[in-house]
């Protein structure tokens, strides 16, 4: 890890489990990562890989029970977010850590105007009165590119199109100038041309406001275009972590390699046949005792069924959790 850049968020050994009638489900297992100031960290994984649960755990958004954060530390500005009391957490959530969800229709309240929903965090966290909040709300809508912003404050969410609704969500998340923005599949429900607009907007806002962003997605294309660093998750674990170019050019984990080969391209070479990752994603259950990818892994060896590999450093800021990644190289970089 290069010195100098300071960490805004430092997550260590996060473990989240769900209590169900058929036993415990270990959804997040020993996940550790950090986020530097102004950085965009992409988190890639398939459904059930634990990417959303990890991020929800960070700011304790999961209902408990059934969810239970069993171990871990989430350091933010000297505070452990998992330990502080609810009041303190509420001052941070929505103010210093913003959240954008996948589906803007279900995360906006249909019975309140957009203006009301934008004013809410401003009045709660910034202590503005209604008039000031209204002014700021209009500025925010304008910033995210909604035409006739001040007139549209009186509109309800259903009066906006999908792309515009996602812009409103972004405006709400950015209302209090957060240091960290967590975006959970923010463009998945949108069409490609609208997705391109939103990605462009995020790039612009990053330059202007300089917040650090965690961007969760299953779309490798989006990641390639927007992320500085990427974390790949599989079966509730981080399997690989690297700067974006490094990950796409020099993937180390067999899952990352296979994933990159299985997606077709719009430009460049067209393969006659798609490469396939055989089998199904793992069904999560008790604490993992083996590599979650072993059953689908083309290069699995005996030890993979006995031992869950830890993350090995394989290069500058590059780590992969695989028994076949030579740990000998570790010394050279640490």
């Amino acid at each position, binding site marked *: 890890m290069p010195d100098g850049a300071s960490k805004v968020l430092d997550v260590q050994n996060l473990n989240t489990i769900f209590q169900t009638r058929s036993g415990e489900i270990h959804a997040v297992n020993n996940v550790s990562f950090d986020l530097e100031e102004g950085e965009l960290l992409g988190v890639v994984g*398939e*459904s059930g890989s634990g990417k959303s649960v990890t991020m929800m755990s960070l700011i304790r958004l999961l209902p408990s029970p059934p969810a239970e954060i069993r171990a871990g530390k989430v350091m933010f500005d000297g505070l452990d977010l998992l330990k502080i009391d609810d009041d303190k957490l509420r001052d941070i959530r929505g103010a210093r850590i913003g959240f954008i969800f996948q589906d803007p229709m279900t995360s906006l309240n249909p019975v309140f105007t957009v203006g009301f929903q934008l004013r809410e965090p401003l009045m709660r966290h910034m202590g503005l009165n209604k008039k000031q909040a209204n002014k700021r709300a209009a500025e925010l809508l304008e910033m995210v590119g909604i035409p006739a912003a001040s007139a549209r404050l009186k509109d309800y969410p259903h009066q906006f*199109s999908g*792309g*515009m609704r996602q812009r409103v969500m972004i405006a709400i998340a950015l209302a209090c100038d957060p240091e960290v923005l967590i975006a959970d599949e923010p463009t998945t429900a949108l*069409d*490609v*041309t*609208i*997705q*391109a*607009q939103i*990605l*462009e907007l995020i790039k612009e806002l990053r330059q202007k406001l300089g917040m650090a962003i965690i961007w969760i997605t*299953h*779309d*490798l*294309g*989006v*990641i*390639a*275009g927007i992320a500085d660093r990427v974390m790949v998750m599989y079966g509730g674990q981080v399997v690989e972590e690297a700067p*974006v*170019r490094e990950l*796409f050019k020099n993937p180390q984990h067999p899952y990352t390699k*296979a*994933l*990159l080969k*299985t*997606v*077709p*391209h*719009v*430009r*460049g070479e*067209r*393969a*006659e*046949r*798609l*490469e*396939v*990752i*055989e089998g*199904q*994603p793992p069904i999560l259950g008790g604490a993992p005792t083996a590599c979650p990818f072993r059953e*689908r892994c083309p290069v699995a060896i005996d030890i993979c069924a006995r031992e869950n590999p830890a993350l090995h450093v394989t290069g500058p800021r590059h780590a992969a959790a695989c028994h076949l990644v030579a740990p000998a190289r570790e010394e050279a970089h640490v």
Partner: protein
Amino acid sequence: MFDVSQGAKTLIEVRGLKMYFPIYAGVFRRHVGDVKAVDDVSFDIYEGETLGLVGESGCGKSTCGRAILRLYDITAGSITINGREIGKESQAGLRKLRPTMQMVFQDPQASLNPRMTLEGIIGEPLLEHTDMDRTQRRARVHELMDAVGLNRRFSNRYPHEFSGGQRQRIGIARALALNPKFIVCDEPIAALDVSIQAQVVNLLEDLQKQFGLTYLFISHDLSMVRHIADRVAVMYLGKVVELSARESLYNEPLHPYTKALLSAVPEPDPDLEAAERVILQGDVPSPANPPAGCNFCTRCPAVMEICHREDPAFREVLPGRFVACHHYNDMNVSNETADETGS
């Protein structure tokens, strides 16, 4: 792979297809307008090919696929399948034709009856359309399960016991049961994880080779369509704006909308990502109230004055390349196919 230039036989011929959904309003529920979901669409599908139909949500691509199978009573136009006109056929008459044309749906969860076993689901078309007895049906179900890569032992299980990818295989097996010639695949991989999508697409390709199927592959995933389709049609607001062979469409798109659409697809390669990108402004207009002139004139980066007045015709401007855009008004292919297949 399939080659269009070899004078392939036309299996499906769609001419001037319109599918309007009426809007009623007021106390007397008067007919005040129409949602023009599919508005004057014409194209051919050749035997053995895969025609990709792409577009954004709400452009009418699914409605178009369903209308071709006559799951709706169409507003206007003609649909010919294997030389037989079905545009005006009654639903009772269509029943006899159903075995040749089948559909694979987007959501494998919603399109499988949760109370039926796998054997019941895959065997239902056989029960309905053939006079096979129970043993014969079971044998055929097992054959189909083998073909789509499902273990025969699972034939007494229920849909909820399967994963998304496996459920989609069940849907495909059901569509194959009656040896169809033509299958409409409506976003068959949209609900699946990335690593499962490739499995299902490869299966569809294998089955096409094995049984000589013709597909209409509806999808919003442009990279997957590039992989599976031989020719591609692009829809925008109820109209097909461009139709070409796959390589020419992706390498050298003609219509400004196709250009913008392709450039908006994020490429999983950080170096390619830096490439110039056309970003369309605004949203798609409502199909109940499309703009005057060309449907794309409100967002087109290359809009001209004529575009606001006149709706461009869908014409063959280069051999095998159809486009509806005023920019290509002076280009023409002076052979018979242009008159035959243009709308």
